[in-house]
């Protein structure tokens, strides 16, 4: 098997993979690109998965371009429904369910798996998570005829789904061992406001406890909580975080930590193998959000096109898609020293994390105050300078 002098192989077909393709083609029309993906490779907006129900969107309607159309438009050889089973960094080949593929440079855009809690009960296998378009299609199917949904986890995805489900007319229970929604992102005051807004919309929260078991009942399911409460329900959705898909990289001897470790050219410990998106850990940071992924894809495309570039992350506030209460959060960097200065008015909450010298290091804005995002964002320090 003889590979072209320069052949780029990309594994994955999520936003990270397709954005690298799109950005690279803006700079380089000719390098052969092969995209290998285990699903069908259609291009869709993943962030919209957690707010598509109330707008009545089917999985098919979320596809903005089929993989065939994307491949044609960008001159990509598409290997869909193809599982990658191994990487040989010495021979520069990958093994796949369709045979070996040689690369001169390899991009791993493998994404992350939804974390699954180990639960007891005879219906524990009924728990769903929505981490891709197929999951979303299955979720919609299960919601047919359902009335009650239990959401495990009150983090970003859990809160977004809770809001979307309540807006779509379901009864929603949210269970989380913490004390407030978005506990890892929001100071108490902001968390309380979000809890109030979602509660007013009809969401019931169960904090300080966790789901232990899911039981089958004649009329649906029952979630058994650690504190003994039992919630009758029809559908259980788990939203307790993401875990980068490391198995391929680890088996190939690439350096990994929480994600596949890469430098600011997105290079793994094998310089001709790259990683980006939810699977990658850049300079010690795993940031499974769209904005960092887009920055990484652009930097990687420029690097692959031969430009001397270094990944930089600007300040990247996260917009939480909870229509019950607009929330924008730019968390201060881990270990920052400073204090929250919080102003709560009728228009919303304006919480700023300020250093001793007065510099703004992070913020949380809710309600009408969310419109301050663009202005405040400009004064925040870069996440990766």
């Amino acid at each position, binding site marked *: 098997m003889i590979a072209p002098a320069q052949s780029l192989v990309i594994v994955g077909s999520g936003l990270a993979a397709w954005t690298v393709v799109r950005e690279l083609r803006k700079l380089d029309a000719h390098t052969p690109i092969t995209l290998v993906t285990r699903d069908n490779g259609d291009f869709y*907006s993943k*962030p919209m998965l957690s707010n598509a129900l109330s707008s009545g969107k089917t999985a098919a309607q979320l596809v903005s371009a089929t993989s065939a159309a994307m491949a044609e438009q960008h001159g990509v050889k598409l290997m869909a429904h193809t599982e990658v089973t191994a990487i040989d960094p010495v021979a520069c080949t990958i093994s796949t369910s369709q045979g070996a593929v040689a690369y001169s440079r390899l991009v791993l855009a493998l994404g992350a798996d939804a974390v699954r809690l180990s639960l007891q009960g005879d219906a524990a296998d009924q728990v769903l998570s929505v981490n891709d378009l197929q999951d979303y299609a299955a979720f919609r199917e299960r919601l047919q005829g359902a009335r009650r949904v239990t959401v495990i986890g009150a983090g970003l995805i859990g809160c977004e789904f809770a809001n979307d489900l309540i807006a779509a007319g379901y009864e929603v229970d949210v269970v989380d061992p913490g004390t407030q929604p978005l506990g890892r992102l929001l100071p108490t005051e902001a968390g309380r406001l979000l809890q109030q807004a979602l509660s007013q919309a009809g969401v019931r929260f169960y904090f300080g406890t966790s789901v232990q078991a899911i039981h089958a009942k004649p009329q649906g399911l029952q979630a058994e909580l650690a504190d003994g409460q039992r919630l009758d329900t029809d559908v259980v959705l788990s939203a307790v975080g993401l875990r980068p898909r490391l198995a391929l990289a680890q088996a190939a001897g690439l350096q990994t930590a929480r994600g596949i470790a890469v430098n600011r050219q997105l290079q793994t410990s094998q310089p001709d193998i790259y990683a980006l998106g939810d699977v990658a850990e850049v300079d010690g940071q795993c940031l499974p959000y*769209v*904005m960092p992924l887009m920055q990484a894809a652009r930097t990687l495309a420029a690097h692959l096109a031969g430009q001397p570039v270094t990944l930089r992350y600007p300040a990247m506030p996260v917009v939480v898609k909870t229509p019950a209460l607009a929330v924008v959060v730019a968390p201060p960097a881990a270990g920052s020293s400073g204090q929250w200065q919080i102003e709560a008015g009728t228009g919303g909450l304006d919480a700023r994390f300020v250093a001793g010298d007065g510099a703004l290091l992070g913020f949380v804005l809710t309600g009408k105050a969310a419109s301050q*995002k663009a*202005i405040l964002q400009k004064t925040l320090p870069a996440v990766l300078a």
Partner: protein
Amino acid sequence: MKVWQCIVCGFTYDEAQGIPEDGIAAGTRFEDIPEDWECPDCGVAKADFEMVEIG
């Protein structure tokens, strides 16, 4: 006036509203926004936006 939607994150740009706090006045047509403009929520390039129907 039209409404445009980011194909990546769903952010909508309503020409009638503009984004005054980001220096884009109400009534600014999408084609008149600078080419290096990016989606404020996800950073996608202007070229990767799409137009959607107003409901």
